[in-house]
């Protein structure tokens, strides 16, 4: 069978599966639409959370990125997994006990204030929109690369699918499609990794393989360190970033993860508090399978690449090299006209530029794996992008229909009316996301990092103190959230877009990059909240009772 046929088959099969699930799990009430009726099993919720969490970036870009930056890539590995420990221990069980539908629900009720609720809605919308634009773009890219359709056509096809199951099924539809999508994406990620690990080290477990010896008896990592040194790159197993910055970025990603509304809301979908704890455990286990494999793929791909291209004749390059040259993601300019590829760190001499995304995508071709593996990878990348997009769209639609319309603008709206509003806002959210996918604002890459910083700087302190500090009042929480949010926005726009006079790396405060600044803004949020809190009265008695109540799981019959 040809590759094209395999790809159509694989994508056709997975897509009909998602649509079938959507029809089977149509939402009939707002509770089903927002939180899948709170009846999801912990195992299923763990898978759904993992698929929700792992985006096109985790699937396609992360391993490639790590393969170019080596040790520094650890910030993503630790940052995007360590946040689940915070979620499981500090947030999920208590928010489940609180038992409403959204994060602004919690902020608004706990801080007895519609101002707090609106601030929370605003944060949730900014975070989710910046994120979802990137996902739709990812869908478009995968379609265009594998099916040879136009990127925009790809975005439209992706929109149609998401529209169908998000609007029809709400959280219930999304949850069960995400379970299917997790299975597709993890299988698609692991199969090539296992094949390549066997090829390069004889060990079928990639996590062990990249610490093993190659066929020449040299440890793979030692070899890669040596190759990197010879070509003028920094040693693979040591980094270039300052220790302080690595610390701050890791912390910002961890705390940001724990503060992302589309992740938090997943824990509202299980039956009881103990299930919320369990599903956080399952979620991290399922995520860890991909996240511990990614650094192995990074090492395999990097070693393979250097050995295939460095100082080799251009005319002798394998077919995949030519295939990816066509996409423009791999370019060779023979600067010294010797017909040999010089791939080195020095930009004056270097003749090869490689887009980091192709490291995962081209892997099966580089390793000469069969066509069905390549088709599987395409289906996996689509599953990763679609599942994350759907989760984000749900947060957007519930923020509008529940937090704004039901809670603030028109509290007397009927159950049926609210459900229609939820579907309509989901519909418009998909259209808007699609628009950004087709006309991506140039700052998408920059704002995804911003989303984590914003979540860390705004939501995380407000939620944690809402649970662990009974004395925290609305004045403290609101001023903390607003200060954290504005400070983070200021820093990111200053150093990413050149507003407020701009600045370079030399101007960073304490040497902290914009990516790591969320940690700093979060600390400021804590300080401001606590100071303002003590200048104002204690929260009312019934709020203190609410806090006492969410700390203790209900007796289960």
């Amino acid at each position, binding site marked *: 069978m040809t590759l094209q046929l395999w790809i159509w088959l694989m994508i056709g099969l997975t897509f009909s599966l998602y649509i079938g699930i959507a029809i089977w799990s149509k939402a009939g009430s707002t509770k089903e639409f927002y939180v899948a009726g709170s009846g999801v099993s912990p195992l299923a919720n763990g898978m759904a959370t993992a698929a929700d969490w792992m985006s096109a970036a985790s699937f396609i870009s992360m391993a490639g990125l790590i393969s170019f930056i080596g040790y520094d890539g*650890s910030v993503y590995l630790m940052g995007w997994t360590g946040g689940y420990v915070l979620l499981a221990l500090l947030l999920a069980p208590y928010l489940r006990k609180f038992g409403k539908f959204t994060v602004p629900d919690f902020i608004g009720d706990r801080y007895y204030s519609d101002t707090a609720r609106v601030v929370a809605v605003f944060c949730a919308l900014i975070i989710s929109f910046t994120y979802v634009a990137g996902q739709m773009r990812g869908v478009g890219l995968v379609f265009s690369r594998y099916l040879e359709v136009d990127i925009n056509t790809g975005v439209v096809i992706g929109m149609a699918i998401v529209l169908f199951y998000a609007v029809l099924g709400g959280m219930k539809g999304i949850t069960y499609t995400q379970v299917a999508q997790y299975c597709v994406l993890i299988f698609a990620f692991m199969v090539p990794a296992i094949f390549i690990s066997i090829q390069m080290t004889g060990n079928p477990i990639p996590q062990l393989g990249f610490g093993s010896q190659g066929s020449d008896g040299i440890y793979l990592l030692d070899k890669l360190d040596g190759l990197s040194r010879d070509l003028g790159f920094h040693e693979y197993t040591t980094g270039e970033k300052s220790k302080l910055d690595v610390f701050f970025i890791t912390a910002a990603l961890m705390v940001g993860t724990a503060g992302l509304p589309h992740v938090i809301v997943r824990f509202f979908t299980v039956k009881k508090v103990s299930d919320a704890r369990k599903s956080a455990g399952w979620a991290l286990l399922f995520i860890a399978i991909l996240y511990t494999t990614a650094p192995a793929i990074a090492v395999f791909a990097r070693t393979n690449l250097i050995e295939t291209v460095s100082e080799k004749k251009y005319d002798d390059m394998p077919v995949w090299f030519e295939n990816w040259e066509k996409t423009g993601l791999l370019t060779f300019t023979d600067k010294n006209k010797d017909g040999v590829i010089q791939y080195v760190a020095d930009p004056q001499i270097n003749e090869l530029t490689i887009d980091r995304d192709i490291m995962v995508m081209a892997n099966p071709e580089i390793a000469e794996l069969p066509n069905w593996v390549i088709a599987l990878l395409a289906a996996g990348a689509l599953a990763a992008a679609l599942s994350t997009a759907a989760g984000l769209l749900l947060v957007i639609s519930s923020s509008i229909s529940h937090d704004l319309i039901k809670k603030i603008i028109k509290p007397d709206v009927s159950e049926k009316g609210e459900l229609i509003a939820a579907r309509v806002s989901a519909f418009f959210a998909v259209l808007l996301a699609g628009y950004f996918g087709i006309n991506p604002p140039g700052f998408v890459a920059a704002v995804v990092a911003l989303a984590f910083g914003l979540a860390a700087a705004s939501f995380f302190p407000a939620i944690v103190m809402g649970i662990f500090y009974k004395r925290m009042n609305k004045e403290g929480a609101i001023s903390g959230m607003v200060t954290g949010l504005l400070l983070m926005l200021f820093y990111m726009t200053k150093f990413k877009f050149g507003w407020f006079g701009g600045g370079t790396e030399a101007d960073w405060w304490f040497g902290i990059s914009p990516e790591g600044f969320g940690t700093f803004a979060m600390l400021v949020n804590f300080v401001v909240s606590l100071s303002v809190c003590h200048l104002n009265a204690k929260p009312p008695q019934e709020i203190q009772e609410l806090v006492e109540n969410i700390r203790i799981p209900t007796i289960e019959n």
Partner: protein
Amino acid sequence: MNKKLAEKYWKENIKYLIILLSIWFTVSFGFGILLIEELNQFKIGGFKLGFWFAQQGSIYVFVILIFIYIILMNRLDKKYNLK
């Protein structure tokens, strides 16, 4: 549940959190970042130890920590007749 009992439950919960989060901090920020040079002097298989903690070990510990937390809390719930 009366107030005194609820407070006791909460205190035990906090104690678990402090212990588990200290381990969380140690394996990631400690071993994977702050102490990496020191740990990189040791090797397990082809991995420098600090590098292994940063890209593998810390993640395994995170998973184990959550499952330990689940067990501890289930036991605590049982002790206070919440289950």
